[in-house]
Every structure is written in structure tokens, then in C-alpha cells.
């Protein structure tokens, strides 16, 4: 017999103890993104919840347009808009209880605001006055993460720690479609599944990683499919359907809380604006593609549903608009104030106690500042 024949005849026999962990079939996502709005499922949703989602969507959209305007006025260094993705952002925040933790990426300012952080503090990173403008422990919101997918293992570790302490705390971590190619994405999902950590991973598949379309990012049938290999369920959801997002995320959060382990949720959505204000989207996509999504706008979908069921009148629409305007005005007013920064802060939070090296450098800067202040004073004299 030749070696090749031998190989052909070889059938690996699983060792006696080997068992497939789970039947992969229940872990597989649906073929079509799950929808609620415009389907019979919508009848079962509490009308109050639909109205709340609507108001939050309107507010979120206004936040996005206001923040984008602030970049044009030079008040923000950069703003990665989530216009078109508001349903994902709002649902992520509303699916969580107060004791839970949110792990956002740089595009998720809106989720942070919807969770209750004041709109101006959420922009500290993007304005450039410091990196994180809030106390993560106080709000149970991790810092906005700029390196892609690196916050996902943090969410796993935190959720795991909470469970070890006997707290029924859930962590929800957000990442983009591009971020799912990073090694940290893989490691986080694997750890979460092995530890059965109470984590929900939310992938916002908005079509692009800066300029690179999903087809160049993965060969998987969907990003939700990736869950199966780790032994956790994957759910494919219409990311512009706030009711569907809320239902699926709430379900995943509840399961995690009850000890059912992690879930990967892929929200199929679209990034209506450029990656950031610094990006030229015409280089990699057609306006017609963007237009095709306008009819599937998250606010429009919700408005249609509410109107058809007689749940939205002009008064409520006006009220939602006014609330959003008030928030935007407040934000503008905050952002138009010059931030007061203390350069000596540069040395304050590097270590619990300054090293002698940092003390020397702090002294140097202090001396420079004193000279500058004296010079400024002389000039005004």
C-alpha cells in the first residue's frame, strides 16, 4: 500500500470520551435579519416602549447632527457619527440595568449618552480636553475605546469578576464589523464562552471599516455565524429596527444574567455619513447606495409603525423634537465655553504616586509656565 492510499484509508476515530459540546444548530443565526417593526411581532411590543424608543431615536439623531456641526466649527477635533445607526446605540443602552456595564467603542458616544451620561462629558475624548471625561465606575461605562476590539476582553473580565463575586451584573460590549477581524475579538469571544461569562457582544455591521467593505473583511456567511465556533448563539438582527434590537439585546442580557452565557449579536445597519469628518466617502461608495438606505432609516421605520397603529400624534412628535432641540442647545452652550485646562495635570494621573523622574519634569513645566505668565503680564503692562 502506498502512503497516499494509507492516508485515504485513514479515518480518525474520536477518542472514547470525546463528545461534541453542543448541537451547533441552535447556535446558528437566522438567515434573514430579525425584524419587529412592520411585522405582526410589533403588536406584542409595549406601546410605551415604542414611544420611548422613538423619542430616544429623535434625540440621538439630533445629537449626531449637533456633534457633526461642532466639528465644522472647530469645537470638536473629530466626530465619528452614528447617524443611521441610532437604533443600535439606543437599544444597547436601554437593554441594560443600572448595575450593568457598557463597553463602547469610539463611535458609540450616543449609547453612552442614552445610558444617561451628560452629553458634554461624553465628548471629552473627541473634543480633546482629556481622554475620558467621566468616572467609569460611577456610570458603569468603560472609556470609549479607540484601538479596535481591545475593550471586548475587558468586558469579559469584568463580567467574569462580577459573577465570581456573586453579582448578577452583565456587560455589553460594542464593536464594528472591521473590529471583528482583530485577534482581541476572537480571544474575547473564546474566553467568554469558556468561562460562560455574562457578556453580550454587539457588532454593528455598518457596511464599512473606513473604506473597506464587509466582503473584504470576512468570508463568513454573516458575522453572527462566528458565534457558533465558540459555542455561543449568534443572532442576526435588523440594526435599524429599534424594537427588534431592543428585544434581541434584552433577551441576550437576560440570558446572560441567568447564567446562560454570552451571545453574539450582529446588527445589520448602514453608516449614512462618512467614517468621520476627515474621511472622503465618495472614494469608495456611491451616493445611490446611501440613498437606498434612506427608506430604511431607523426613525422612519419607528414613525411608520407608531403612526399606523395610532400611537403617535403631532403633539408627541413636536415634544420629541423640542426635547432634542433643548439637548442640542445645551450641548452647544457647553461646547462653546473654552475648556479650562491645567497643564500640570499632565503629571497628576500617571502613577498613584509621582516618580522622582516625573517630579523633576513637573518642576520644569511649572517653571516654564511661570516664565510664560510673567512674560504675558509684562506685555499687558
Amino acid at each position, binding site marked *: 500500500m502506498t502512503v497516499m492510499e494509507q492516508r485515504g484509508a485513514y479515518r480518525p476515530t474520536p477518542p472514547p470520551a470525546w463528545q461534541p459540546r453542543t448541537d451547533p444548530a441552535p447556535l446558528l443565526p437566522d438567515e434573514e435579519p430579525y425584524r419587529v417593526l412592520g411585522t405582526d411581532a410589533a403588536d406584542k411590543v409595549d406601546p410605551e416602549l415604542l414611544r420611548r424608543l422613538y423619542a430616544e431615536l429623535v434625540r440621538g439623531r439630533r445629537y449626531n447632527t449637533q456633534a457633526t456641526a461642532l466639528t465644522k466649527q472647530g469645537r470638536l477635533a473629530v466626530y465619528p457619527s452614528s447617524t443611521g445607526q441610532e437604533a443600535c446605540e439606543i437599544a444597547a443602552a436601554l437593554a441594560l440595568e443600572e448595575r450593568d456595564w457598557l463597553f463602547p467603542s469610539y463611535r458609540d458616544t450616543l449609547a453612552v449618552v442614552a445610558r444617561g451620561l451628560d452629553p458634554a462629558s461624553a465628548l471629552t475624548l473627541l473634543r480633546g480636553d*482629556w*481622554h*475620558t471625561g467621566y*468616572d*467609569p*465606575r*460611577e456610570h458603569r461605562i*468603560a*472609556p470609549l475605546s479607540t*484601538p479596535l476590539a*481591545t475593550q*471586548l*476582553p*475587558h*468586558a*469579559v*473580565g*469584568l*463580567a*467574569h*469578576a*462580577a459573577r*465570581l*463575586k456573586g453579582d448578577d*451584573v452583565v*456587560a455589553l460590549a460594542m464593536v464594528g464589523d472591521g473590529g471583528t477581524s482583530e*485577534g*482581541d475579538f476572537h*480571544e*474575547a469571544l*473564546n*474566553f467568554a464562552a*469558556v468561562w460562560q461569562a455574562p457578556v453580550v457582544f454587539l457588532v454593528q455591521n455598518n457596511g464599512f471599516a473606513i473604506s473597506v467593505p464587509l466582503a473584504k473583511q470576512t468570508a463568513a456567511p454573516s458575522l453572527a455565524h462566528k458565534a457558533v465556533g465558540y459555542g455561543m448563539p449568534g443572532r442576526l438582527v435588523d440594526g435599524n429596527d429599534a424594537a427588534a434590537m431592543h428585544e434581541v439585546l434584552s433577551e441576550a442580557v437576560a440570558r446572560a444574567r441567568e447564567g446562560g452565557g454570552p451571545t453574539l449579536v450582529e446588527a445589520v445597519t448602514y453608516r449614512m455619513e462618512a467614517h468621520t469628518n476627515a474621511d472622503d466617502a465618495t472614494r469608495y461608495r456611491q451616493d445611490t447606495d446611501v440613498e437606498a438606505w434612506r427608506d430604511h432609516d431607523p426613525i422612519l421605520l419607528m414613525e411608520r409603525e407608531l403612526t399606523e397603529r395610532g400611537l403617535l400624534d403631532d403633539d408627541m412628535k413636536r415634544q420629541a423634537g423640542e426635547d432634542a432641540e433643548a439637548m442640542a442647545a445645551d450641548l452647544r452652550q457647553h461646547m462653546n465655553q473654552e475648556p479650562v485646562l491645567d497643564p500640570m*495635570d499632565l503629571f*497628576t*494621573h*500617571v*502613577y*498613584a504616586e509621582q*516618580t*522622582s*523622574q516625573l517630579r523633576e519634569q513637573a518642576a520644569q513645566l511649572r517653571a516654564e509656565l511661570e516664565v510664560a505668565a510673567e512674560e504675558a503680564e509684562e506685555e499687558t503692562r
Partner: protein
Amino acid sequence: MSTVAAKPVTKPATKPATMAQALGRALRDSMAEDPSVHVLGEDVGALGGVFRVTDGLAAEFGEDRCTDTPLAEAGILGTAVGMAMYGLRPVVEMQFDAFAYPAFEQLISHVARMRNRTRGTLPLPITVRVPYGGGIGGVEHHSDSSEAYYIATPGLHVVTPATVSDAYGLLRASIASDDPVVFLEPKRLYWSKADWNPDAPQTVEPIGRAVVRRSGRSATLITYGPSVPVCLEAAEAARAEGWDLEVVDLRSLVPFDDETVAASVRRTGRAVVVHESGGFGGPGGEIAARVTERCFHHLEAPVLRVAGFDIPYPPPMLEKHHLPGVDRILDAVARLQWEADS
């Protein structure tokens, strides 16, 4: 107070212990004292780590406190970040120096700067234990001296013990630190022995203090970790040449103890920095510059460096040519512009 009957006071018994045992004891005592201390890494459970430093911890404290993780360094350190955010004190074991590199993204982008980016509200008390350095005949990727990468990252403390007693004390101090510490364990000293009293182990001063291991008047050898015993040996050998060498063990690279180092060099007027890692871009350059800045008028000679060559870590059969040994150190001392010679 406990009601245990008072034992008769006897002199604490010292017995030979290895550095690995002292490290393990430090982990054990830290875990016993503070329930928030958790150990995680590859093979740290039933096996006790490939160097047996974590031996017995899983049995004593359970697998929730001493956890065998999936094989993923970024995942280990990344989850440790989240654990620390929730109030735990993770002690992470990286199996070997060169296998810590997948975790660098987490270390540099998050661990080192979380306190800073959150204005002090989210300090991360994480200890990252990294067995490092050569001299054990390890195959490729098992002998790197990676300290230059760590010391170049603000926000991390970087410490490395050279004695059994310091191994215990420094690790206790690292775990107790509210800031992340990269704890470099000189692999080839794991089995070094010293008389040590495990029932009354010594802790150390706060992280950041160097110690004079041997005092002398002719010149100062500035060193740390695996090179400390080599320098002490060189100092003994130097006596035959009429040189009385002082040996400073840095113990901590960050923070750096400028005071102890400068005081020594001002006394002796001459200095050689000794370490295993490459000289170009290595810690020795920084140390020599600091010494020169502080002691220029006391210096009788330029500060010299004896370092590993600037090569990828060599195969085990050649490593003896790479590692700074006694002869190379004495050669450097001989080049310190002794007046009698000129």
C-alpha cells in the same frame, strides 16, 4: 484576635529556599490576606506553572482564584483589565518573555494608561509576571530580555528581583501596588537558593528603591536581575586586580532610584552598567545618561556599558558568548581610565 495559644518564641528557622519558592510563597500570602487577589495564566492551575511558581495555589484557593485560562496572552491580560475594573487584583502569568508580546497591545494601550485616561478614577492594580532572560539553555523565544519595551511605556512600574528575599518582598509590594507592575523574573535565578525564613519573610521598601549589594571605593557596577550575581562575582574577582567594586542592584527600573545610583557614583567616580539585554536602545543607555547628567563633575571616566550583543537572542549553544560574564565586566572596569595605568 485569634485564640491560638501563644507559641514559645524561638529564633525563626531559616532554611534553603529557591527564588521560585519565594515567589510562590508571595502569591500565596497575598491571596490569603486579600480575597481580591486572583492568579491567572496558562498552566498555572494543576501544573503550578511551567516553573512551578503557582504550585499548590489552585488546590488551596480553588480554580476561581487560580485559573487556567485559554491559551491567549492578549485575552489573559485583557480580561485581567476587566477584572481589575471590577475591584479584583489580578496577577497574570506570562509563560515566557517572548510569549508576552501578543499581550503588548493590551499592556500599552490599556493597562499602562487607564489611570491616566480616566483622570485617576480607574487605576488598574494588575501584576504581570514575566519570566525573562537567558542562561538556561532555552530554545528560540525562551530567553528574551524584554525590559526595554516595558520601561519605554509610561504608566507601568518595572521591577526585577535578584535575591530570594527580594523575590518575595518585591512581589508582595507589586501585588499591593495600585498601579500596574511588570514583574520580571530572572529565569536563571529561579533555582538559586538562599537561606530564607518562610515563616517570617521580609518585605521590601516601597517599589523604586535600589540597594547597594556590596560596597566598594574604586567603581560602581550598576545592574539588576540576572546580572546581579554575575557582578558580585566580578567584584570578588576584581579584588585580585586591586579594584574594590561597589555593586548597586536597581531592583526597580521604573521608578528609577537616581539618588542611590548617583550617590554611589559620586563616591566612586566611575561606573559600568551591566545587563543582558542589547546595549543599543537598552536600559544601559538611559542609565548612563542619567548618571552622566547627575555626576559629570565627579566622573573620572565615561560611564561604560556591558550588555548583550545587539542580536536576536542566540541559540543555546552560543548564549555563553552573548551574556555579559565576569571577564567582560572586568575588561570594562579595566577601561575606566585608571590614572595609575596612564
